[in-house]
């Protein structure tokens, strides 16, 4: 995973000083074996067609065979893409599709200001963790 570094102004803190976002954490995943096999995560970078192909493959040949639906997850910027994938399976493929909106908690790792030494690399920075909530989507496409 790449550690992306960028500056952004945090709105929640009172002072307007720019804090350094060291890393954005992924969502918390506690999946069972079946969930791992039947869930597909959509990123904003995921190509639309390859997502469609992957889901279609899973729907045609579900493994393990007893799963009832495939779950597609998307959050933030990827919500729109997730929805359009859901629409595709609903209208073009006549699948039963269920859409559940949720809010997802994620963690940001932010550099603390009391780094008296100035390290060359951002990975050496002292950090604190901060919670952030974003909108997410869970789509169930039935087999």
């Amino acid at each position: 995973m790449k550690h992306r570094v960028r500056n952004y102004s945090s709105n929640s803190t009172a002072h307007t000083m720019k804090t350094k976002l060291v890393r954005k954490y992924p969502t918390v995943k506690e999946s069972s074996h079946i969930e791992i096999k039947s869930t597909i995560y959509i990123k904003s970078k995921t190509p639309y067609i390859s997502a469609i192909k992957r889901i279609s493959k899973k729907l045609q040949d579900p493994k393990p065979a007893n799963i009832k639906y495939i779950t597609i997850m998307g959050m933030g910027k990827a919500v729109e893409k997730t929805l359009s994938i859901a629409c595709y399976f609903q209208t073009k493929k006549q699948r039963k599709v269920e859409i559940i909106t949720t809010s997802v908690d994620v963690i940001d790792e932010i550099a603390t200001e009391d780094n008296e030494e100035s390290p060359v690399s951002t990975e050496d920075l002292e950090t604190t963790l901060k919670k952030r909530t974003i909108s997410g989507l869970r789509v169930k496409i039935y087999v």
Partner: protein
Amino acid sequence: MSTKPTESGGKKTLNKNQKLRKKRVRNARSIRAEAIIASKSNTSNELTETGGILKVDQFINSRHYEINQLQIAMHRSKRSSSTRVFQALPRKLRRRTASHNIRRIPKRMRNRAIREMTKSAQQNPISPGLKGRKLHGLSSSALYKARMQVKLLRLAAKSNSLKLQLPEGATEAKVNLRQRIKLLNNAIKSSKRTTILKMNNRMGSYDNTGINEMAPIPRGRIKYYKRQRVFSWLPTHIWNAKRSHMMKRWGFQIPWSATQKCFKLSHRLGNSTAASDGALCIDSSFVGTMILRDNDSTGAFLKDLISKITNGRAILKKYYSSKCFFEGLLYDLNSHEVVLGPFDLLWINDVTVLLRLHPSLYSDLFNSLLQFKDNISIQDCRFSLASITLKGSKSSSALASILRSVGPSKSFEQLKLISRLTDPSVLPSKTMFAFNAIDPRHLANPKKITKPNKDLSVEQIMSLQTEFPATEFSSVLQRLVDPTERENSYKNQQTLKGLARRRRNLLLSDAANEHTSTIPHDSINDPSIPIVIIRRQKSMDWVVVMPWFWMLPFWYQLNRIPRIFNVGLRQVQQLNYEQRQLYFPDDYPFTSTGYMENNLYKRSSLKAKWDKKPRARRLNFEKIKDIHSVTLPSFTGEIGDYFSCDWKLLQILRNGIEFLTKNGEEVNMIESNKTTQFDDHKNRIVTVLNDLFELYKDEISADKVDDVVPVKFATALSEPVANKVSTLLDISTQALAIVPITCEVSGRGHPRDNARIYQIPSEHKIFWHNVVKGVYRSDGRIDHNQTIPLPKPHHLIGFITSGTFHLSEGRGVGNGFIDQKFAQEQKDKYILIRNVGTNVYRVAHWDYIHV
């Protein structure tokens, strides 16, 4: 010669068993069919001249029956060839070695195996063993011992120096053999030590730490001692030797790769992807642990020392005060320019630090630190601390299911909390657990932590860092780094028999215990094992550190969990490549270990492979055409060494070009009206590019054992090196700065190890830019058959150290190094890649690797 005609007319007669077998196979292969006879009752009235009426239901039923029979027959015929029960075992459990030996077959299958063996014409499956039979009135083992004694005596009698060692009378001629042996036995008895080293356990476990000296190799069974003198065994050696290809390197016998095919498996499980549903584990005890303790209570000397060897990084607040786990580069004590390799570090308190080092670096650093013996005490824990490295989403749940803490422990609670997590990249940078664990064999088999009612929340993840149990953590760590405490942890370490006895007694004592196979921990007598679990952020894996002789019980338990697979160093390398990280030593050509690995070890093995082939079957590197657009008289065909990344050539070439263009001149290929010239000191004068290759040939043919590394490490962030190549001598002595890069081929083909990297010549920029965008044929497909413009030899800027097809990218990806000067000047980040021995160039997009 007269031949007796055989009964079967030339064919070999089959014995009873073979006939039986043949019959069985034939039976298994026969498929029953149900011909549709349009059912007898209907034949008369419904069959007309135009044909009968097809009864669809009957027809379908009969086909259904036939398909079923076909499938059954296929299944039967497959099984009929496997005649023995062990052949029906899953692949993982099959052992070919001594499969006739009934004791090697799993117990639950033994009865069937005995039945099968007695049926076949083989000898009695249950051999009486060596002890049973008697020859010359002695059992075979006793006979062997007696013969050995005689042999040894003969040897002793021959050698003068040994004769002097023998007791008086033993060498006299009139004394017979029996008397001699008696005399010798008496001598042995009298010289035996009366004081025997007492151990605190029945397993023979002890703490083997060298304080201010290198530790000796661990004492084990004498039988196996001789074969460990040069390459010692890891705690799991016997387990691993049965399941992996082992390699003898760096003083250890290390699992190189699992015997089972596992390339795709390790890609799927080992990478941090959402699809991983298992874990990979490796015995990483060969990574040496060193503990440094400052004799002074301020710890200033140690801090200064650590600052020196990490170039000032490991003493930053994050590592020194907050005690996060450090992964970084190890620098030479005397020079912050010389990198030795990667290593790990953890501050235990202000005066104690724990280092984890690759075995090739260990002894050098240890010996160079010995000069500070007065200021610091150095513990060599290579053979007293063992470790397991786990990778994959199931790692944490696997660990939680084999580990149990001795008493209530906050750290263990935290481990349990996150054990069900399948994506460990959500864990904060300081994720470590340390607690006193009970003997893992107390659990009859690994038991999963039961699922809590509530799902794991973000707050709980954050609490790992905010509510880190610092005091508990450091107290366990103190135990782990203390030799006496490690020794104490072995106290009353029980044998498997002892544990089984306790388990049986537990069952017999109370019928209620029928379903609990866990032996309760006795806090007074049972050992408590200090154990540390570290989540490594950069390597994205888990490291479990524990005392050396406790490793094996944990390892056995761990490998009983489903979807946990053992891997070797090859898979570690594969995963490092897939995560676009450098793997030590192969991807560290700027360190002396890595340079030797590339220049000596891998090169000679590749060359030997090539040399072994007949001339007609091997690639003639010299005769490959169309590699460069100009040919120089100094070399033909492939550039540089054919079997390695030729850093020496790159150094001479890049430095030489800088030398030639220092006044802003153009690089001339060749001076056609002059041959090479030498100055008064017989040094070659460099005026054109051809001279540089001649200079390179001089350097190579001088046949110096050159362990001076011609390249040095630079990063994306480091300042452009102001190395002015001003003199002729600088060309071959000034180390070239190279930066690690990863590149992705945009199109077909993939880079291999040692592939050459070229810059795109400015006149070809437009062509390659179009290739990246895609040049299409008239039928709309991408044109792969364009004539490629070739670069010139001086466009060489680097080498790929590890490259292949990347399974998650779905295209060729290579990790390598390029000239720093070029990297910093280039903006569009495209390069050309050419595999060794080919003349096809591929365009690739590159990016920095952050080390």
